[in-house]
C-alpha cells in the first residue's frame, strides 16, 4: 500500500472550505490497543519510538523509581508511567501505562490550531503534525485534554507521536507495537481492537477478579485511536492522570466556531454604522454653517399641504 491510499486526509487545522479529496476513499480506522494488565514496564516501546523516529537521546534524572522521565518531551513521544497505587485494603498495585498521543476522533489540538494544514487527521484516524506549517503558537498544547503536544523552544515547533504514520502508510505496524515483547500492545482496525479489548476485559472480570476492568475509549472526544484495557476503568486517573472525561476547552469549540465569526460581524457593524451615519446624517461641520435654504419640517409638512 502506498501513503496516498492509506493516509487520506479527513480534517485539516485552520483550513477554510472543503478538504481536498475528502470522502473519495473509505479506509478502516486504525487503532492501537494497550493492555495495561500485561505490561511489564520493559520500556522497549520507548526505545523503539526514539530509534524509529531518529530522535536524539537526552539525559534523564533518577528519582528512586522506574520512571524514565517525568513527562514526555518534544523528542520523547512515548513514556511508560509507573504508578504505585494503594488499594482500599492496603495492597499495592503497580500500574503501568504507556502514555502517548491518543489520536482522538475529535482532536482538541486540531480544533485549537489556527495554522492552515499544521495538523491533519487522516481518514484512518491518525492525527499528524505537519511541522513545516506550524507557527509555534502552542494553542494545540492548550487544546489537548491529555497534555500530549510538546513544544521545542529552539525550532519553535510542536511535536508528538505520529502513530508511526510513515510505517502505517506502508502497511506496517507502529514501532512500539513491533517492539513489545509481551503482547501487551496490539494494532489493527478499531473494530478488531475493540472486540479484542472486550474479550480481554471479560477474561479479567471472570477469571482474574478485576470486577471493574474495562476499556478506555472516551466518548467525550468521539473515541480515540489508542484504547486501553484497564484493571479499573471506573478510576482511570490513578493511571498517571488519565482523564475520566477528557474535554476540549469550550473556547476552542464554541468560541471559535460560533462566536468568533459573530464577533467579527458585530465589530464590522462599526464600519457599517459610520458609513450609514455619513449617508443619513452627514458630517458634523463647524459652526457657523453657511446659510442654506431648507424647508421647515421636510417631507412631513409637504404631506400636510
Amino acid at each position, binding site marked *: 500500500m502506498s501513503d496516498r491510499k492509506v493516509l487520506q486526509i479527513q480534517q485539516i487545522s485552520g483550513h*477554510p472550505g472543503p478538504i481536498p479529496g475528502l470522502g473519495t476513499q473509505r479506509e478502516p480506522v486504525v487503532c492501537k490497543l494497550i493492555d495495561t494488565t500485561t505490561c511489564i514496564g520493559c520500556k522497549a516501546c520507548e526505545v523503539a519510538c526514539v530509534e524509529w523516529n531518529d530522535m536524539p537521546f537526552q539525559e534523564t534524572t533518577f528519582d528512586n523509581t522506574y520512571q524514565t522521565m517525568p513527562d514526555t518531551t518534544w523528542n520523547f513521544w512515548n513514556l511508560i508511567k509507573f504508578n504505585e497505587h494503594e488499594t482500599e485494603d492496603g495492597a499495592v498495585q503497580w500500574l503501568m501505562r504507556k502514555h502517548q498521543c491518543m489520536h482522538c476522533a475529535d482532536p482538541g489540538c486540531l480544533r485549537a490550531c*489556527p495554522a492552515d494544514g499544521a495538523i491533519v487527521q487522516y481518514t484512518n484516524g491518525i492525527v499528524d503534525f505537519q511541522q513545516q506549517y506550524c507557527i509555534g503558537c502552542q494553542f494545540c498544547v*492548550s487544546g489537548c485534554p491529555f497534555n500530549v503536544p510538546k513544544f521545542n523552544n529552539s525550532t519553535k515547533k510542536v511535536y508528538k507521536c505520529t502513530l508511526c504514520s510513515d510505517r502505517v502508510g506502508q502497511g506496517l505496524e507502529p514501532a512500539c507495537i513491533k517492539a513489545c515483547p509481551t503482547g501487551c500492545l496490539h494494532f489493527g482496525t478499531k473494530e478488531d481492537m475493540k472486540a479484542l479489548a472486550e474479550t480481554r476485559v471479560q477474561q479479567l472480570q471472570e477469571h482474574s477478579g478485576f470486577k471493574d476492568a474495562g476499556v478506555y475509549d472516551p466518548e467525550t472526544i468521539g473515541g480515540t485511536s489508542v484504547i486501553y484495557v484497564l484493571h479499573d476503568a471506573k478510576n482511570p486517573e490513578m493511571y498517571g492522570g488519565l482523564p475520566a472525561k477528557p474535554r476540549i476547552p469550550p473556547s*476552542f469549540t464554541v*468560541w471559535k466556531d460560533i462566536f468568533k465569526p459573530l464577533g467579527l460581524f458585530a465589530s464590522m457593524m462599526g464600519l457599517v*454604522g459610520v458609513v450609514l451615519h455619513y449617508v443619513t446624517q452627514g458630517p458634523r461641520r*463647524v459652526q*457657523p454653517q453657511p446659510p442654506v435654504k431648507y424647508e421647515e419640517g421636510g417631507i412631513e409638512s409637504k404631506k400636510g399641504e
Partner: protein
Amino acid sequence: MATRAEHFDRRPRPSNPIDQIGRTVVYEGELMRHRAYTRFLHWSYGIFFFLALLSGFGIYLPWIFAWFTPLFGGGAMTRLLHPWFGLGFVFFFGLQVLNWTSLMNWKPSDSKWMGRIRDYVTHRETMESEDVGFFNAGQKLMFWEIVIGSAVYLITGVIMWFPATFGRALVSISYVLHDISALIMLAGIFVHIYLSTFGEPGTIQAMTRGTVSEAWAWTHHPGWYRQLTGRDPYQSVEDARERLQEEPPQTDPTKAL
C-alpha cells in the same frame, strides 16, 4: 502639558531646522491642541495597533490566514512578531496615558453629555454644550475603553505567549478575552477614524499639525475654547455668522475659518 495655551506662535522662528523638531507652528486663527510629543505618541501606538491588529487577524480566523500572514513573512513570523507589536502598542499608549490621565477624568458634565449623545449624533444639537472641555465624554469613553482593553490585551497576551508557564485552562480563557478585547477595539477604531476624518471635518489636523481652527474649537470643545481664549464661544459663533453674512465665503466655510 498638552493643554498649554498657545494662541499664536509668538516665538521667533528658529534658524536651525533641528531646533524646530518638537515645535508646533500655530498660524493666525488657529489654536494649539496637541504638541509634537502627543502626536508622536499617537502615531507610534497607532502604527503598532494596526501592525498588531493585522498580524493578529491572520491567527484569528482560518479563512484570512492565507491573506494576512504573508504580510508579515508567513505564519511562524507573524506569530513571532505579533506579541512584540502588542508590546510596542502598550508601551507608547502607556506613555499617552501618563500624558492624558488628568484630561480624561470623568466629570458630571460628561454624564450629561452622554445623556444627549443622540442629539449630537443626529445633528439636532449642532454645538456641544459649553461645559465640554479639552475632551468630550465620547473621547473619554474611547480612551478608558482602550486603557482597560490594553490591560486585558497585555495580561492575556503574556499568558498566551508563555502557555507552558500558565497552563491549559488559563490559556483557553485568555484566548477568548484577548479576542473580545480586540473586537471591541476594532469596532471603536472605525468610529474613531471616521470622526477624525469624514465625520467631523477639520479634526485630522489636530494629529497632523497639532492645531485646529478657532471655529472647530468653539464648535466641538467650547469649554476648552473659553479656557484658552477667554472669549465666550457662543458670542464667537454669532460674530463669525455676522462676518459670513457680510462676505459669503467662496469655498468651504470649514476651511476658510
